[in-house]
């Protein structure tokens, strides 16, 4: 299970904050069970730890159910459509 802790020193403790769709109060920790983690991953198409890796104010602890490899399998990159080959010409006028 993951735990999200939020610390914005300029905002009053207890201020409700939307952290990627998860409600966390400033200065407090919120648990993210597997269902909530799956909802987060589906919304962001990104593992929770990857989403928060650059944050000064949001800290993550615990063990994730869905890591980067699992997320990549859930949301594979779209396949670029291939160009159709032009059909052979049926003009046989040039044939002898």
């Amino acid at each position, binding site marked *: 299970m993951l735990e999200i802790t*939020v610390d*914005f*020193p*300029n*905002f*009053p403790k207890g*201020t*409700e*904050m*939307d*952290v*990627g769709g998860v409600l966390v109060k400033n200065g407090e920790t919120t648990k993210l069970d597997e269902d909530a983690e799956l909802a987060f991953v589906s919304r962001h198409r990104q593992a929770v730890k990857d*989403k*928060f890796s*650059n*944050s*000064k*104010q*949001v800290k993550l602890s615990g063990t994730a159910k869905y890591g980067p490899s699992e997320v990549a399998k859930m949301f594979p*990159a*779209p396949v670029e459509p291939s160009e159709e080959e032009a059909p052979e010409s049926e003009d046989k006028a040039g044939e002898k």
Partner: protein
Amino acid sequence: MATTPGLGGGGSVGVAFETTMGTYEAPDVFVPILSESLEYTEDKYLSEQIRQQSIHTEAKPSYYHVEGDIELEVDPNNILYFLYATRHTPTKTGVGPFTYKFVPNSAGTGATAAGPTTSKTLSITIVRNGEVFGYTGCVLSGFEFSVNTDTGILMATLNIMGLAEGEEADPTEVWIAPVLYGADAHRIYLDAAGATPAFAGGVDVNHNGFTFGVNFNPTAENRVRSDRSASYIAYHITEGTVSADIDFLTRDDYDNFVSTNKRAIRMESLNGGATLAAATDGVRLQANNYFFNSYAAPLEGMGDLVAADTEGRMLGITGGDAYEVHVKSAVAIT
């Protein structure tokens, strides 16, 4: 990286105070906006070599800076960050909520330093369809607060000018509930000009909208060094304006315009109280000494109200400040 086109609504804007002007800081707060137009601004050099042809022969990158506007609904939780990045001297009082007061100063350039009584520069992070743009060394080149009687919402247009732009790490957006000032939040007061006008005459109810604007007339200054980004933002003459359509009832304001009489005006937008002191949060915009620079109250049509289209210009005042911007907020700038 996005693989499909995206909407503006999927983007984000975050701001942070810089410790060193021009050095990127990841966002301290995310700001809900209505639109933004920050862009890399450069006049590339085009060579006009004479070589028996009549088309430019080479293009070289030149000096650049960043410039653009942010439009937003004024929210006491985040407008403070922008007001700190202006040509103002800030003060902070109270124990929470706090009252911040910004008055004009004569600084020649943007600068940044820690603490609630010093102006700062901003790093502004903008995510556009998944791509991250980090604008550094940003200050407000001007701003305009306005209320119109269509929506009644206190809005702001923030004119931004900064030193440089670079690609930065994907931020983690965190949002809090918005706090807006709606149609029932605003009060306008009038008085004679003074260093500390009392505004004891009661609320004025004849203004069809209100706009409070300040322009610091800045320039992005380049210096000879091995870097194309601007060296600093220079401020020049500050111009303050107060504009409104006012119901024409008497010749008083018209006579003030003709005589260049000096007046004072205050608009407060408050939540939770009828005065800034009693409110839970609020914004006060106050011009202590202004004159009507233009005033026109024509008969526009048989069915049209007789109204005065006015613009006022702010002036300095002995023993006081030309204008004041107050913000009452629970946010603690430290």
